[in-house]
């Protein structure tokens, strides 16, 4: 009840003092201050949540409520992290994973967009291939890891896995985006004399930028999954290799440290795309 009243009060505050007003009313300033407070509360709660998780992890493992051999614990990870950095070439492994992810991501975006454009171009091809695409997408691609290893060798099978996991869903999402372009915009371009290539280049592709961004976001995660799975099987470097290797010799510290680095890596890649999205949002709002 009070929150409803507060919401009503705050809308009145906006109406009474629009942001353009030269001297903002005290009510408006109060509303602004409250909005800022709320934003800070959200961030603070996030940090708190992470801290509680780490504290519980540390505490439960140290008190042997859970077996530290199985879970390790945060304060034990730091020395491992330093050690891996100095002697285990952690940076090299991280770079290997990042590089393979970017290659797989780039390849699956390019292939996915090209295939979606081809399907858009030929409605017949889409009708024919649609069921195959659905099945290919639903297929657990992990089943192909051994085959890729045999076909492509240890290095390229990692890329192959990243592309296999990301490409089909990219085709489907991007194609749906192409189909969602207002047909009247296409008609408009046609009345101006556009051929199919021009419609694609001037209307369909630029109009699908929001879809492409959504596909980027999804893809970066999927490519990372593909790379890690590929590294499990075949690689002699990369975070996936560290994880598998660590688990085989039962060094949980190494496994957990690698996973934390992986989490940070995927967070950073996601942030980069969110930045790109924000930069483009101006035009596509």
């Amino acid at each position: 009840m009070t929150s409803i009243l507060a919401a009503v009060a705050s809308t009145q505050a906006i109406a009474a003092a629009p942001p353009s007003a030269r001297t903002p009313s005290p009510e408006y300033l109060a509303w602004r201050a409250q909005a800022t407070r709320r934003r800070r509360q959200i961030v603070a709660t996030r940090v708190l949540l992470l801290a509680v998780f780490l504290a519980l992890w540390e505490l439960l493992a140290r008190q042997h409520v859970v077996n530290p051999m199985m879970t390790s614990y945060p304060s034990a990870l730091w020395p491992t992290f330093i050690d891996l950095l100095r002697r285990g070439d952690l940076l090299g492994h991280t770079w290997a994973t990042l590089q393979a992810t970017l290659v797989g991501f780039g390849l699956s975006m390019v292939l996915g967009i090209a295939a979606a454009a081809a399907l858009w171009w030929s409605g017949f091809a889409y009708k024919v291939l649609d069921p195959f695409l659905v099945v290919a997408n639903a297929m657990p691609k992990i089943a192909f890891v051994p085959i890729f290893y045999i076909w492509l060798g240890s290095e390229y099978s990692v890329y192959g896995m990243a592309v296999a996991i990301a490409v089909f869903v990219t085709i489907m999402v991007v194609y749906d985006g192409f189909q969602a372009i207002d047909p009247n915009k296409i008609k408009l371009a046609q009345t101006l004399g556009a051929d199919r290539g021009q419609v694609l280049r001037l209307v369909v592709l630029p109009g699908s930028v929001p879809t492409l961004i959504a596909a980027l976001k999804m893809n970066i995660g999927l490519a990372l999954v593909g790379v890690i799975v590929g590294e499990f099987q075949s690689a002699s470097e990369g975070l996936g290799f560290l994880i598998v290797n660590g688990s085989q010799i039962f060094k949980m510290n190494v496994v957990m440290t690698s996973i934390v680095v992986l989490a940070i890596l995927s967070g950073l890649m996601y942030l980069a795309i969110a930045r790109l999205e924000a930069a483009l949002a101006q035009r596509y709002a």
Partner: protein
Amino acid sequence: MAAVLELPLPSRAADAALPRIDLRGVSLRYFTHEGETQALADIDLRVAAGEFVSLIGQSGCGKSTLLSLVAGILAPSSGEVRVDGATVHGPSPRVGYMLQQDYLLEWRTILDNAVLGAQIQKRDMKLARERAGDLLHKCGMGDFLRHYPRQLSGGMRQRVALARTLVTDPDVVLLDEPFSALDSQTRLAIADEVVDVLRSEGKSVLLVTHDIGEAIAMTDRVVVLSRRPGRVKSEHLMRFPSHGGGRPTPLQARALPEFNDYFRTLWDELDVHVEG
């Protein structure tokens, strides 16, 4: 103004009596899984150079289909469509088409939207930008060249759409209920501006509308189409002797005594029955 167009057209100067738009015995059928539909039957229609003609008729009578035929994005099942004596086989730079909504591309600035047609037709983009700037100034949009469409009101967006249609300097402009998405005051104001710009550019205009008043106020001749299949039911010249010399603007026309007479005639012709 039309002479700016690159294509030298012998027919243009050679025969002044040649109609700009010429439809002869045009019929159109289309097929769906549910069956076949006769949309237009045996249409004969001519529009002279510089003439403004409107098409009215009930929903589904094929008015918009007829425009698509002239624009070359549909082909007639029988009969022939000619523009300046040449049979229409596809979209032509000599025919501009203004749709029901502006369909501005939201990722392009106003100026970049206005030159879309020139870009598609691979014209000299520097000249196109200059002409687009001039046209946008003429339409009162000169201060918004670097804006994006979402920053503009519906009326402003439709002005940009008009400029986009005219940048490539077509001889014929097809208007398909171009104001139907606007509120009624904006409609009246924009109709005046659009007619003013189109007359000053010497265009031939074919307007499709369901608004009888708009047809009377904006055009020289009103063609009534029958229910599906659409045929030419009757044609009416719009003359306003009480205005003295010259053609009244759309807003002036609405205040003249002839307006109401024409309105009544056309209303009877349309034979509107409200069903249900």
